[in-house]
């Protein structure tokens, strides 16, 4: 077995850090998506923001430009508005409306990609599907405290920090609007504002993760940690922490897998995340099938014991 540090040397650290910094904010916001049953909104947005990304790239010539994030937030909200427009004003149901909206925008984005960035290596179709997480080491370095840090790592670290701060600040509002919109409205938190705020921020995160893992695998980073954590706990705070742990473990295991198999880094991370989810599905303390089965067996056995005890008492 080849370890990442043997294969890539110190670059492996940057890859791991980058993978974790991409996965962490996704896992946090993904937890709220799963709780609010908006998982597939994440799917729709990750595809629907493509025209915004292409336009931003055309104007700034740089995938790391902050303007791209602004454009992403706007186009993400546009996607949700388009979905609402379709299903509110016609009898087309929400699921079909999502399907129509995101495929249309994605197709538009693909054509724009072909039209504007012909032959450009930084943004092409395979980047949309697979991402380029392993390219992080080819970026120019920033020197922080005497250490040369690749630029994308710095931006992702800033974004991850931002996410954590926002989650802490808006924790109560997010908690209440996720579980009881009516109650939260009576407390003065506007559920619709929180909704659009969440969608906008989700778009920002999706776009910044886009370059690393592509439009499809970002869904895995959003949902797998949250779903795995959901199987392990009933408490939101614990769930957020566990989702973060899942993000770290899947980055770490994914890197191992990547070094071992010499295949795509992003898909290796997703596969590792899937393995962790399967583990949680099996032995998650709250909702794992094996745990539930064991609990049932124990309950049955206890029941049996009680019955036999009663019978023997009566016989005496």
């Amino acid at each position, binding site marked *: 077995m080849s370890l990442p540090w043997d294969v890539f040397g110190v670059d492996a650290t940057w890859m791991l850090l980058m993978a974790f910094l991409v996965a962490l904010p996704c896992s946090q916001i993904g937890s709220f998506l799963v709780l609010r049953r908006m998982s597939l909104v994440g799917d729709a947005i990750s595809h629907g923001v493509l025209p915004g990304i292409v336009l931003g790239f055309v104007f700034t010539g740089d995938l790391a430009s902050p303007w791209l994030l602004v454009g992403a937030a706007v186009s993400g909200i546009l996607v949700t508005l388009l979905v609402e427009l379709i299903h509110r004003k016609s009898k087309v149901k929400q699921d079909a409306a999502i399907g129509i909206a995101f495929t249309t925008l994605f197709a538009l984005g693909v054509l724009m990609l072909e039209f504007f960035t012909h032959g450009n290596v930084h943004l092409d179709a395979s980047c949309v599907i697979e991402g380029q997480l392993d390219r992080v080491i080819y970026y120019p370095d920033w020197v922080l405290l005497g250490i040369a840090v690749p630029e994308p790592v710095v931006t992702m670290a800033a974004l991850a920090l931002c996410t954590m701060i926002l989650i802490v600040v808006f924790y109560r509002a997010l908690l209440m609007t996720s579980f009881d919109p009516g109650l939260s409205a009576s407390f003065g938190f506007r559920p619709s504002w929180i909704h659009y705020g969440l969608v906008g921020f989700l778009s920002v995160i999706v776009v910044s993760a886009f370059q690393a893992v592509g439009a499809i695998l970002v869904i895995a980073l959003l949902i797998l940690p949250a779903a795995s954590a959901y199987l392990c706990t009933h408490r939101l705070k614990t769930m957020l922490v566990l989702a973060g742990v899942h993000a770290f473990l899947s980055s770490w295991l994914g890197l191992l897998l990547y070094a071992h198999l010499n*295949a795509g880094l992003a898909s290796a991370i*997703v596969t590792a995340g899937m393995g962790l989810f399967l583990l949680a599905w099996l032995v998650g303390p709250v909702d794992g099938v094996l745990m539930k089965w064991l609990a049932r067996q124990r309950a049955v056995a206890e029941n049996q014991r009680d019955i036999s005890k009663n019978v023997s008492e009566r016989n005496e």
Partner: protein
Amino acid sequence: MLTLLSLQSAEIALLASLVLGVACGLLGSFVVVRRIALVGDTLSHAVLPGVVAGMLWSPERDPYVILSLAALAGLLGVVTVQAIVKSTRIKSDAALGIVLASFFGLGLLWKSRARVPGVSDFLFGNAGAISVQDLVTMSVVSLLLVVIVFLLYRPFLVLSFDEGFAKGLGYPVGFLNALFYGLLSFAVVVAMQAVGVILVSAMLVTPAAAASLFTERLRTMTLWSMLIGVLSGGIGCFLSIHLDGLKTGAVITLVASSFFTLSYLFAPQQGVLAKQLRRGRERQRVARENLLKSIYHMMEAEGFRQDGVTKLALAEWRKTDLESIERSCQKLIKAGEAHVGRDALIYLTKSGWRRAVEIVRNHRLWELYLTNQADYAPDHVHDDAEKVEHVLSGEMLRKLEKDLNFPEVDPHGKPIPSVEKTLQELSQEGGTLS
């Protein structure tokens, strides 16, 4: 076969696009009706490991092998979604996301590990790379889909709308569902080669959603959906060939989206425009009827000594300005419900009288109904009656009259006019009606 072999790749692409329009349009209408659009999306991503397996299994790319393995992977994905939802608290949306991303990630990893060439044709769609053999397979599979759906139309119809009812009829629901998802996987794989993983969703959902706005009947919807699918495929492929080889899948999707936009705006019954028009006409009618009612009330207040009213008095009665009364009167006249006499008074025509009496009668009947039968206080019934008076008619009205025993006085002591009697009296007087 000879003629097939001599086809150019552009012609193959065009034929393939038409075929996928049929397959996806057909199954898409069931997808839309069953509200599982996002299951289609998940399925299209989940088939990837199967495609990779198929390519590894048969390096000469035997389309039947690839198709079967891909469909198998798709079915496995659907089964996994159901297993997750059944055995945990995770809701179906998250389960779909999990399966979509996991299967796709696994497929990508396997593909890049095994270095399988040609998979990217499936990922992005490449109509130009479709071989004659592929085309034949696609056509055979699509034909099979059409035949199976045609034969099992009734069970599928019942299953789509009410699974419990289907069970009650004795249909093997589990088997039918498995068959349906199997067929859906086939349709997905057929379309994937031409339009790519992501835009398969569009081929499943968009034509069917456009068709659903045309009709309430599933059979008609299915036909429309297939037609729109075929048109999107054909036009899209044609455009992509002529526009300098733009990505076929994207162009086909945008053509389908244009069809949806057209139907969203202009569908005869369900279109936004038609609805807006209907609502506008409705509002106009209510406004006209309210004016008729006011005229009736004014004449009633005078004890019907006069047949006409002046516009000024009408404006005062309605607490509005002369100008807007002028405008509304013009509309009334245009509708043939009133005319202006030589003395510049507004007179109701026969149909105007009829409608005015009907509205007042509806209003007072409803007020009486609310006070007598629904125990409302008499001073609380007016606002409700203001709305109901415009929609009360036919069967409902007759039932109301019967329940109230053909009353003549409303809860406020005002007479409830009878349409027939009023018209009879009017024609006897001869006045304005002659």
